[in-house]
């Protein structure tokens, strides 16, 4: 696949990652971000899915005063006993993980449905 196509897939994935974070309360919204990443080969789609999921959800914290996030983390830590840093990164990790598996799955589906014979050497290389 050509670079433009791959770049487009990544941009759309990032867009879907944020759209999902703003509209879907559950971390399985990250399934959406994996779909456009099918244009990447299976070697990169999983990594891309994880990074896009992790970074997009972590950057959401920038919407708030970081001192307030830290303070709130400390309060919730006292309530439920989980360290505040873990509380802050838990959802992004889960979101990234689901994004990664989703990307791998959709890449696999694409590969499964796409006859190998019609792949050009360049596409084969890109897939790897």
């Amino acid at each position: 696949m050509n670079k433009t196509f791959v770049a487009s897939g990544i941009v759309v994935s990032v867009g879907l990652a944020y759209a999902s974070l703003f509209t879907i309360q559950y971390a399985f919204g990250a399934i959406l971000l994996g779909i456009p990443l099918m244009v990447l080969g299976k070697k990169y789609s999983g990594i891309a899915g994880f990074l896009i999921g992790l970074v997009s959800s972590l950057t959401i914290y920038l919407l708030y005063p970081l001192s307030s996030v830290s303070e709130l983390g400390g309060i919730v830590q006292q309530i439920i006993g989980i360290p505040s840093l873990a509380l802050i990164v838990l959802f992004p990790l889960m979101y990234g993980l689901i994004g990664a598996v989703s990307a791998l799955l959709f890449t696999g589906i694409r590969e499964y449905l796409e006859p190998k014979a019609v792949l050009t050497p360049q596409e084969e290389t890109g897939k790897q």
Partner: protein
Amino acid sequence: MKIRWLVLLVIVLVMLSYLSTNFTTLNPRLGLWESAGQGNLTSGSVNIPGLSSPVNVTIDASGVAHIQASNMNDLMFAQGYYSASQRLFQMELEALLASGNLSKYIGASGVSSDQAMRLIGLPGNAWTLEQAYISDYPQYYGYLQSYSAGVNAYINTSSASNHLGFKLLGMQPFHWTVFYTLCWQQYMSWSLTTGAAEPLQSALIYNALGYQNATLLWPYYPYYTQNITMVPGDGTVLGHNLSQLGVSPNQFWAQNWYGQNATGVNTSLLKTMSPLIRGALANISDPFGMPGAHELGSPVGSNSWVVGGNYTKSRVPMMANDPHLPLTVPSIWIPMQLEAPGINVTGWDLAGIPGILIGHTSKTSWGLTTPEGNSANEYLETLHGNSYLYNGTWHSMAVQNYTLVGKSYSIYYTNNGPLISRNQNYGISLNWASKQPSFDLVAELGLDQSSNYSQMLQALQIWGSPPQNFAMATLHHVGYITAGFYPMIKEVVNNTAIDVIGSRSLLNGSNPAYEPIGNVPFNQLPQATNPARGYMFAPNQPTVGKNYMHPFVGGFWASGGRAQTIYHFLKGHQNTTIQDMMALQSNVSDYWALMFAPYLVNALHGMTMNQTETAAYNQLSSWNYTTYQNQVGITVYWYLTAEMYNMTFDKVYSSVNLSSVPTPFITTAIHLAQTNQSSVWFHGNFTTLVRQAFARETTLLGSKLGSVNNWTWGRVHLLEIASPTGIAALGIGPIPIWGGSHTVSVGTVPRALLIPEPYVSVGSSLRTIASPGTGQFYGVMPGGPSENILSYYFSNQLNMWINHEYYNMNDQKAVAVIRYE
């Protein structure tokens, strides 16, 4: 990729997705973190559907919101919107509590509270009151609706569900209605009602210990309070008194007001009713209610005093008020100014209820304390099946059914009210004055719009429940009135009918002679204006003397320690200034310790002591009776009296199954030390008792705190300002704190042998000092307007409150201007 890998990925994805549903609260955008973005109030405009014209909300440096609207309905709407923006979670939690619906949100753990609220009748009374507003005061019902509309306008914004409490409990805000406002009014009324449990507790004491001991431990008028009543003098009010009716105060108060002549209940029968009485006490106690609100010697009290222009340096009147309520974050109060044509008032409103309850206009000021006289009474009912006996005839009880968490419950009613306890053919009913429609909002807005003394009195004619001591100061007048519903019961003394207030025990519900015959007329309520001596005060001591024409048989007053301090301070401060008022409100001296400690020191004098005991004795004997955190003398005094009570009153109470009933005030011990040191309550020898208690306490304190120099009050006396959710992380404290149970600046603590003592949880929920004549208004509260723990305004006034400092409410810089349009 092979198909089995795809299947495996699908399985992993499904598992991860399922697992992720547990982490939705941690979603950075839609989870609890959004609360982190709801910090502080900033200038800007907010589009709010429902306003007829724009409203300006100016936030000043102390966090007080100044709401300016062009008409009354917009003002109420904006107050509702602003209150919800600061306190929505608190308001809704309290509404659920008061309406008996807590279990719908928190499940089975809320059932006993819901049962109590419904049994007492809060939601039912609120519903009745709402119908009465619609028919009798439609204009004010419109204000209530505007307030609700404002709350709902906020609920309709995306911010509403972001309040941390909703996020943590996984709740969504529900639609607000006038009913919830009135439920909360009923809840506050119930919390400040005297007569709900006190006659039941005093009946238990009477049953267990007899008349002589009952009156020794809990005299009708507490010891040393006869000359410090709210209304100066012997009890004569507006020229009328008991003597004029043909009964002298001495004759009247020599009666056994627990006995059959007073209550219509056979004494032998009453003695068998203790289990029934205990059942009633358990059934009306709310596990989430104000701690100790309905007990003999309740810690829920307040201070207020007024000083006339003839006694101040400025020659104009002044007023001070600090209501003692459970201290919570957020506070039950929100500070604000309400301004529209016809109204300009500043003070504190109860979150969830429109108007300003304690505050001032440019010409008037007022404060509230609880008078501690019965506005509820309990009746012993004779029952058979679902019928009750009244006036010789059997009547069917009304019944109300309801369901909580899938289980059905029923409440039965006699003519007196709900049956709060039943044991076979006997039951106890609760006759609470608040079942009468009480249009307190009408009175409150009347005060908010007042510009002179007579307008304030006129407004208070409408005040119903709970009765309150209203302290008032205007440009030229000061005064008090105990306004509200006081049901009268006709008693006969020396063949003379006397309409009394309340009872000391259960009344006979089957005999019409003991039914309430109406409320005390407004012009016969305890009241006085511009006292000749220059000042009056009402910190829960007896409101009126023994010659009052409607004797408070059901008067369960505070010990009067704060009243003594206020009385002696004001007596010595002619030409009182604002600074004097502040100094008095900050006073942490224990008047009862001043009276009692010399007896203790005298008993210890000459005792053979070890090194620790000698050091402790030196601290006690040189103590100046103040209760600052660094004082050691108060610690020695406090644990010494706690040990004495443990060895005497607690022991006797425990032996007669009275452990759940409060032991007497310290003034009983002082009275006995003064009059009968060989009393059986002192095991026959006061000196021996004190020495034994002293040896015990020094051993206890030494083992826990080390050397005597470390026994500072701040190590054992700590303040906790709790969250209504009960989540410790959302509260403040523990903080070492000044004060004691009898100091003007109060730090109420139970007399327990624990180190540290149970945390102080009741105190001055706000402090205000007002002098309308000089335009000086000061205030402070232990917290701030916001319920957001991350907001500066969550606790912005706390340090000032702890340090006994004040905000000048007339001189605060604007820090944000928000326009509602």
